[in-house]
């Protein structure tokens, strides 16, 4: 059978040689290996002070985007909830009333929109499914909490504040934009 890697070794239970039985050569080679590590660069990142650089397309905490005028994009179509493999998303739809045009972009909106961050696997399928470009994953980490209830994020935590927009352009790579374009075209067909 062909070996999968070049690192495989044939083992045998032959008797130890004298040099192996007195342990000292092995001990010496061992302590030289460890002493070299004393001077090596440490792998630790001191977290709160130093933060690891995230990938451009890191999939962290979700954001519900607003449009340019500050109205929520989400129309509570439920495609994200259907796409979600972990069944982490629930929502209740409501109809927009008169005078709320500045708040919600279309006639239907999500009155309740909840993502259970303990169920979420951060796969990004909700983002892919969304026809309104309303939900995105960002490079923010989901912080810790003391109880399970705290991990069910409602609209208060998900919708971006009007005057503190979350930048998601980094996730809009060419491949993503092309994909969305084609999706729209196939949808229209």
């Amino acid at each position, binding site marked *: 059978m062909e070996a999968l890697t070049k690192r495989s070794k044939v083992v045998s239970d032959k008797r130890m040689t004298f040099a192996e039985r007195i342990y000292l050569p092995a001990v010496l080679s061992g*302590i030289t290996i460890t002493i070299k590590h004393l001077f090596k660069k440490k792998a630790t990142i001191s977290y709160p002070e130093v933060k690891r650089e995230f990938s451009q397309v890191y999939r962290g905490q979700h954001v519900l985007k607003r449009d340019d005028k500050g109205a929520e994009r989400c129309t509570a179509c439920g495609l994200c909830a259907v796409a979600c493999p972990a069944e982490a998303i629930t929502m209740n739809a409501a109809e927009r009333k008169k005078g709320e045009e500045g708040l919600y972009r279309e006639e239907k909106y999500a009155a309740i929109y909840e993502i259970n961050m303990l169920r979420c696997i951060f796969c990004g399928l909700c983002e892919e499914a969304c026809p309104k470009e309303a939900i995105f994953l960002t490079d923010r980490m989901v912080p810790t909490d003391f109880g399970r209830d705290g991990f069910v994020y409602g609209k208060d935590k998900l919708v971006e504040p009007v005057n503190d927009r979350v930048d998601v352009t980094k996730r809009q790579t060419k491949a993503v934009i092309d994909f969305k374009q084609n999706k729209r075209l196939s949808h229209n067909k």
Partner: protein
Amino acid sequence: MSFLLYKLLLVVVMFTITLVVAMYATYGERKIAAFLQDRLGPNRAGIFGVLQPLADGMKFFMKEEIIPNTANKFLFILGPGVAMITALMAGVLIPWGGTLEIGGEVYSLQIADLNIGILYVFAVVSIGVYGIMIGGWASNNKFSLLGAIRASAQMISYELAMGIAIISLIIMTGTLSLGDITRLQAGGVGSDWNFWNVVYQPVGFLLFITCAFAECNRAPFDLAECETELVGGYHTEYSSMKLGFYMFAEYINMFVSSAVISTLYFGGYNFPFMNDLGLDHNTITILGTVFMFGKVFFFIFFFIWVRWTLPRFRYDQLMNLGWKALLPLSIVNLLVTAVILILTGK
């Protein structure tokens, strides 16, 4: 009266230094372990984590103290006490430096220079295993008992080889006193050629340091606590400061062992060129003490270094090594030393 005062002062100073060194050996242990594993180690309490030992000590005091209701309460409390007391007692014989001359009076930096020196150290260190045995027995827990049995078996096996390794050193130096053994190694590189004992007794040194690892219950011979098999070994049932005492006793033992190794084999407070620099007596003494502590710290580092390199021996390997390798080797070493001494007519 002034003699008593100066001895008392010396004892208090040495006691404090021993405790502080043991305290910071725990910090060193964690820091060096981390560095050897490409980590940073404790660095949150104080700058570079130097206050970590204080935080650890505080934690030990604040922890709930649990005494199992099936345990023998008196022995359960006695165990860590015995471990701690014997660990601290062994340090009195170490010559930490030469003599200081202040106002015509000569003060030795050794607390007590007994003529049976090294025998006393052996006796006291051997009592240390009672702390472990009593603790393991009194816990009324099978893991503790197994740990205690292992500790005592290991102690007996390795003390023999260690003792015989020392005998070959003693027939060479002709004295048991640690002060005299150190003075015999005075000089060194420079005008008066004189080598440290490690040059004459390399095998003895190897035997001694190997047995010292076993005596201190340090890896690769830490079978008494070996967390992978025996939960915590003899201190499985211990909590709070009683556990802290066992831990502390281990580090004090390490410190004393390092000091004994430095004294017996590495010239104690002597350093190369000590008589050629034209320094006055007191300066040489102080420098010598600094060198002594340098040597001790190196050996503590070595203890830690080896612990984070070697895996633990299996129990039968440990016994094989002790009885079939170290003991015969120490006897051969003794015979060879004796024959050479007779042939050279010393």
